[in-house]
């Protein structure tokens, strides 16, 4: 429990009744959650070790209601923590005692799909998978696919600029977003972008994406939808060393091949996943790659042949090219169950740094050393093509001090990612989890420029105020 929260503003806490009454005048009674029991469902998110009970929770149904709520909070100096589905792994949606939670989950409709222009306009509380489901009957999909896609909302995806396993080919949220309806803190509703590409003026859409709920609340989004490939099939390779696996990744990309997914698992991850999913993974290898390509059968065959030829000089101990849907499903089953399977054998925290892929072997060896030095274990599963690591640092909550050790190890790993030229977070966001590490990646001037931009939208630090920027040294203009 090492992450600090700001002291709640006592004056605001004292006004709780008045604030709740004020909100009650703006939305229907069922949209306002006041009782402690019901508020408890909103006191944390995917970073469950931390929780704070909010003043109240409000779940509006329209952009107009969001506007009225924000205007009210602005006028009454009440802090607001925006929330999608609450799946953030970095604590992006964790409230604080003197803040209300503004959840967009009720606003979950598809407003319009234009297959010819390949766009969909949706309310921001729709789930990521919900968008794909709404367009799949025409063979289309929404490309970014975070692991939480069943539950997470597009609002949260925009706030975190979420990625997924397929971004090597399709990009992340910011590359698939065309427009938003954004409600500013004073209640002003603005349209940014639209059904066309590249909005005029400053790239406000690019700024909003990944701003972690600090600049406004997105109530609608226009996203690109893509026609799905005819098919996809993976190959699996097991290597006797981390170095061979890393060199194979570099060789595939160096040969001009961009697989739609290129996933890496280390030995502990393979063993944990195999025990859980019985995917047929090799247990005698140090590292494993899953490399998936897309297209027609003949394109896939051609591409997988090339990839096998590239992999051979690295002496893979196992090489399995999927020949059927069933084999593909088996190969993916293990990888996709990685987080759940690890959760069965230990408590864990999931890190999210990105590194230059050339540093892969060095960083993996160092991660191993770091985690061992704290007397803990680690399993590594990650997107190898783009260097986005997900070390799962394992610990036992019931052993006093172990969680703190895991957090410390995680911190050391993230510092290492920055040291080798990478960054603190590739797709999960900063939230509270990495807030106090921002100074390893950015100097004071870098952070000041970011805070000045933040200040244009929220000079009083009312929107998701405990996040992203270290609590010390804050300013607005």
């Amino acid at each position: 429990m090492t992450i600090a929260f700001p002291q709640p503003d006592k004056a605001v806490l004292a006004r709780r009744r008045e604030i709740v009454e004020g909100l009650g005048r703006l939305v229907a009674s069922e949209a306002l959650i006041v009782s402690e029991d019901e508020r408890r469902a909103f006191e944390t998110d995917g970073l469950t070790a931390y929780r704070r009970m909010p003043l109240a929770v409000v779940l509006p149904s329209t952009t107009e209601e969001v506007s009225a709520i924000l205007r009210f909070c602005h006028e009454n100096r009440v802090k607001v923590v925006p929330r999608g589905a609450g799946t953030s792994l970095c604590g992006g949606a964790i409230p604080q005692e003197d803040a209300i939670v503004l959840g967009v989950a009720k606003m979950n409709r598809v407003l319009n799909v234009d297959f010819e222009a390949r766009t969909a306009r949706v309310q921001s509380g729709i789930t990521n998978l919900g968008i794909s489901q709404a367009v799949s009957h025409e063979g289309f999909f929404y490309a970014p696919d975070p692991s939480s896609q069943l539950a997470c909302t597009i609002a949260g995806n925009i706030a975190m600029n979420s990625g997924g396993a397929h971004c090597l080919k399709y990009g992340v949220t910011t590359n698939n977003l065309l427009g938003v309806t954004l409600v500013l803190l004073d209640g002003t509703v603005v349209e940014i972008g639209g059904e066309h590409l590249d909005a005029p003026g400053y790239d406000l859409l690019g700024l909003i994406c990944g701003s972690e709920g600090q600049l406004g609340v997105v109530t609608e989004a226009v996203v690109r939808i893509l026609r799905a490939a005819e098919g996809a099939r993976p190959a699996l390779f097991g290597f006797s060393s981390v170095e061979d696996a890393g060199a194979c990744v570099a060789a595939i990309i160096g040969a001009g091949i961009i697989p739609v997914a290129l996933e890496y698992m280390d030995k502990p991850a393979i063993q944990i996943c195999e025990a859980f999913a019985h995917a047929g993974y090799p247990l005698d290898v140090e590292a494993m790659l899953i490399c998936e390509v897309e297209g027609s059968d003949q394109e896939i065959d051609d591409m997988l042949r090339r990839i096998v030829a590239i992999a051979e000089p690295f002496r893979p101990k196992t090489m399995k090219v999927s020949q059927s849907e069933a084999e593909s499903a088996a190969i993916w089953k293990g990888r996709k169950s990685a987080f759940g399977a690890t959760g069965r054998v230990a408590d864990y925290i999931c890190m999210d740094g990105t590194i230059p892929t050339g540093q892969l072997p060095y960083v993996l060896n160092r991660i191993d050393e770091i985690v061992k030095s704290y007397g803990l274990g680690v399993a590594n599963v990650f997107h190898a093509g783009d260097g986005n690591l997900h070390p799962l640092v394992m610990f036992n909550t019931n052993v006093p001090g172990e969680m703190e050790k895991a957090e410390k190890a995680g911190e050391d790993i993230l510092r290492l990612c920055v040291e080798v030229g990478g960054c603190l977070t590739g797709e999960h966001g900063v939230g509270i989890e990495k807030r106090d590490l921002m100074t390893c990646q950015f100097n004071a001037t870098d952070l000041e420029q970011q805070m000045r931009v933040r200040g244009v939208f929220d000079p009083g630090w009312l929107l998701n105020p405990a996040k992203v920027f270290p609590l010390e040294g804050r300013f607005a203009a």
Partner: protein
Amino acid sequence: MIVDSPRHTPRDEQDASVIIREAADKGTLLNVAGNGTKSPMGRPNQTDASISSSGLTGITLYEPAELVISARSGTPLLEVMRVLAAKGQELPFEPMDYRALLGTKGDPTIGAVAAMNISGPRRIMAGAARDSLIGVRFVNGRGETVKSGGRVMKNVTGLDLVKLMGGSWGTLGFLTEVTFKVLPKQERMATLVIRGLDDRQAIEALSMALGSPFDVTGAAHVPDRDRRGGNTLIRLEGFRISVDYRMNELKRMLRRFRFMDILEGVGAEALWQSVRDVTLLTDQGNRAVWRVSTAPTRGPDLVAQVAQSLDAQWFYDWGGGLVWISTPVDGDAGASVLREATRAFGGHATLVRAPAEIRSAVDVFEPQPDALMTLSRGIKASFDPAGILNPGRMYAGV
């Protein structure tokens, strides 16, 4: 600009920082430029001096296996492209070369590609320059050196100032170094050419192609001068066997549009270059050129409305989502008609080429609602409180 106004060419970031800090102290307005090949674009502005990236050259990092390249902002774009090509790679977004359209000479810089978010036909598949721009270093209007993003392609650490710098036309900071994600150059390129379609039929064909699973990387329509037909171009890129397969499927899918040819090799490359660089409209002498972005399916309606009131010539890129329109330079060069059309059909229009008097008199960029302009002015002030960097180049007060 005053003829003999001082021209600063900093040799490094620190130099740039000193120059800009001094200008901020004195209130010296700076024209921010590379090699000036796009100086006849944007709103003409009055400045006291200029600062150019031409002294900041050189590739600072290139890791082909990591698909990343960094260069100082004044590095010639052609040098970056040459270095990438030597390793079989390229900038995914196919940046346009404005020199033919604007009648300028010199070396376009990689910094300008970032600062103006310059893309080409592959934008529909691979994104714009802003989508590949993953890191920047710049000096803001206070003379402070700031970095955002980095050299890794997945990075959500902090506010994305990289996006703000991309397409800000030098009004927020003086870029010193830019980092782009790159991609392998494809083994083979083939173009399906359909002849004789009018605008609506052409956009229908392009929409079908873009809505197919065949990864179309270029979708343009060039009407004939008599407007009775034209060439509709659909480009595929990839490994040989894959392009063969997809081309066959595409032809089958589009068979009701008869008159089809397949174009490959130098001729096809030249054709796409003419789409990219808008040279299809450069031979039209002294005419204004507009760049209009709209929803692809609304392109033909927007053009039809414009053509009712103006003597216009045009062609489509991005499956109909980008329309290049040339208009006579009389009066407002068609600004009021174009803006009425973008209001009616959605999207935005930029006056890319016109005499300075016209660019001073009309809005060069699509006017924005008050709330967005207020945010834009706030953002400008947060980077450049003295308002000395390219003031007014995009919008008044920005």
